[in-house]
């Protein structure tokens, strides 16, 4: 028995010690030898190569900005400033450093970073990948190859498209967090509260890209520069960029994005604002379910979408009794509003030939024989597809009030 235990234990210990790199020189790495990257931005390199030697086509050069955390400065306040770049003096006191490197491709750029950093970039803690809209219009799949091929990178990293320069996004100081990349990551995650922006990770994007006839929506971020000088610029995440294959072809605003998300069953939260005969009403989404089916007949594609939404009355800026009749009227109005959002969203994506809902994928998966017939002409048919929308909105709660707070006017009881 003891010989058995010794044998088994020895084998397991040897394997665990050997294969976890605890003791093998060259595999274990101290924290101080790593430049922990928490945000990565990819832009086209329009300036000179800044001294970096790259191979290949000059036109294909990219500017990679890696936001590296300063281990000793994370607990301190972030430096003031307007988002200085790595060449600026304001960078030194900050809890992060935006390392800007030019390279022919991502891996070359990451390795070239060793020319300016005294440690190798460590990407396992990266939270966001920001790509400029210029690159997005040309295609981003080739830049994502590195993230899936490397053993360190993770696939659940948020993917975001930036209006204009992506490096500027990582340089925009946060009002609430020390690290702009972390702020951006939390900002993206908080969009679930509004559902005006989709969530998109590297994995979900590539999975949609590889799915035939399925397009992706990627969150869109821009920097807002207030007119008042004393106010700092800030990040604004709203709407989404439409992708066909891996190229950005357009932008959806918040309402249009949510219209698409209603049908895709990706609305988790949000507010539906209504004008109820001059009264401003807000309905909060508690729960929603969306689905669609597609049919093909007489050379046309017809999509039938169904949305069920459960809402709570969040705000009612009016007077008078609030009874079941009003609730029904509000539900009806809400249904019309949701239908309008869906229609606008669908119109826009149809106009761009972007099958974000996955109608082609629906035919491929569920109606394969029909798909084989329509596959070649699908995109043409998609542009002329009709959508029938059925919305069932239910206001199940009125919050903590039964009557509007403005119900008593001049001290008189209604």
């Amino acid at each position, binding site marked *: 028995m003891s010989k058995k235990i010794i*044998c088994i234990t020895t*084998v397991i210990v040897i394997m665990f010690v050997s*294969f976890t790199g605890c003791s093998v020189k060259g*595999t274990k790495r101290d924290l101080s030898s790593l430049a922990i990257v928490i945000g990565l931005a990819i832009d086209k390199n329009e300036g000179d190569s800044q001294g970096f030697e790259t191979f290949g086509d000059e036109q294909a050069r990219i500017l990679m900005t890696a936001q590296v955390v300063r281990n000793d400065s994370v607990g301190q306040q972030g430096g003031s400033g307007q988002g200085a770049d790595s060449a600026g003096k304001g960078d030194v006191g900050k809890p992060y450093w935006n390392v800007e490197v030019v390279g022919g491709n991502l891996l070359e750029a990451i390795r070239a970073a060793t020319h300016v950093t005294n440690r190798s970039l460590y990407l396992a803690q990266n939270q966001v990948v920001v790509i400029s809209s210029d690159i997005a219009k040309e295609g981003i799949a080739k830049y994502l190859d590195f993230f899936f091929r490397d053993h360190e990178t993770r696939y659940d990293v948020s993917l975001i498209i930036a209006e204009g320069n992506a490096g500027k996004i990582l340089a925009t100081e946060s009002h609430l967090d020390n690290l702009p990349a972390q702020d951006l990551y939390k900002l993206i995650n908080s969009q679930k509260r509004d559902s005006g922006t989709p969530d998109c990770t590297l994995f979900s994007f*590539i999975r949609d890209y590889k799915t035939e006839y399925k397009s992706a929506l990627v969150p869109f971020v821009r920097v807002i520069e207030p007119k008042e000088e004393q106010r700092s610029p800030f990040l604004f995440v709203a709407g989404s960029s439409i992708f066909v294959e891996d190229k950005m072809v357009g932008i959806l605003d918040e309402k249009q994005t949510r219209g698409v998300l209603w049908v895709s069953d990706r609305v988790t939260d949000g507010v539906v604002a209504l004008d109820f005969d001059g009264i401003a009403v807000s309905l909060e989404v508690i729960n929603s379910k969306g689905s669609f089916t597609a049919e093909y007949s007489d050379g046309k594609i017809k999509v039938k979408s169904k949305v069920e939404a459960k809402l709570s009355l969040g705000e009612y800026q009016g007077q008078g009794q609030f009874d079941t009749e009003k609730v029904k009227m509000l539900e009806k109005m809400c249904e019309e509003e949701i239908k309008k959002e869906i229609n606008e969203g669908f119109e826009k994506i149809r106009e761009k030939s972007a099958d974000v809902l996955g109608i082609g994928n629906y035919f491929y998966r569920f109606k394969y024989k029909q798909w084989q017939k329509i596959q070649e002409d699908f995109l043409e048919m998609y542009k002329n597809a009709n959508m029938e929308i059925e919305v069932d909105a239910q206001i199940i709660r009125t919050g903590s009030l039964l009557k509007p707070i403005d119900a008593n006017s001049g001290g008189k009881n209604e």
Partner: protein
Amino acid sequence: MSKRQFVFITACFVQGSFMYTMYYYQIAGNESWITLLAGILFGIAVAFMYGALYKMHFDKDNDSAKGLVEINMAVYGKSFGKLLSLLYVGTLLLSCSRMLREAGQFVAGNLLMGINWTYILAILVILCGWTAFYGVKYFASIGTATCLFMYIFTIVLFILLLPHSKLYHLLPMGKEEIHTYFKGISLCTALPFSELVAFLIIAPDVRGENRGNLKKELFYGILAGSPFLLISILRDTLVLGPLMGDFSYPGYEVIRLVNYKVFSNVESLYGIIIIFLMFFKSALLFYSVAKALVKILNCKGSPLFYAFVSGVLFFVSQIIADSNIKLSEIVLQRIPYILLSVNVGLPLVTLLMSKIKKIKEK
């Protein structure tokens, strides 16, 4: 080992073939689970054939069992029997070296970057040799726990990956050509079920009542181990979808998506467990190769002999392919046919010849 232990080491042997799923995806894509189900049915038939062959040559009166080498010698004569047995040794050596090569490359590529994979291969080969020298009975005793633990771990990970799963990735079904299904089923039957021929060599180590009849044990072993492969394939299909065929190790890459509260970055732990499973299977294959060679060469299984076999294994593991892409090509295009011919075709012929011999004797 007892019959129960035999069942569970068979199950662990099947579970240890987890890495083969990456080859299944290259052929059948999202319908790999269908080809695996068919492969399991054929595998059960193959296992019954092995059981029948073993039972036929079991001497009930003297309670003495014949391993595969002795069976070949009894059916084909001493010299030709040994020659044919060398074919089996060759295929089992090929399987073992391939497993160790893949294990070494997996560790070097995903767990221990920066280390030459040959060092990892050397460690694994030495461990296999050492384990085989002391007898597989020690591993047989942990087979039950290993098998159950793998299921618990896999089911937990499956549940954690449900948010990423899309049921429609299983569709459409029946879209492939007939020859694709044929190729897929051949692959699923060859890897891993045809490798169960190794158990014909180690079966004489089984003790207990009616130890000459191991058909049920092989059947239960396949039933106990195959759901693990099926769950892994379903998980990969539901989560990865069209990306299944793109990754080197899809079963490992999918675990990197697990990110729920404390359950994140679990792929390293999963990798270690997978390596242990692969080592378990490799050790069994090594043991069967060594035991068969002892019978063929009529020598003692001394430490030097096991060291020699380890050296041969190390050498074959290195030369089997130049790169993982070449290895993948060999596995997809050549290995199934070699394994099916030798590990399934030959035993079938041996069984038929044994039956004819028995009828003639009567």
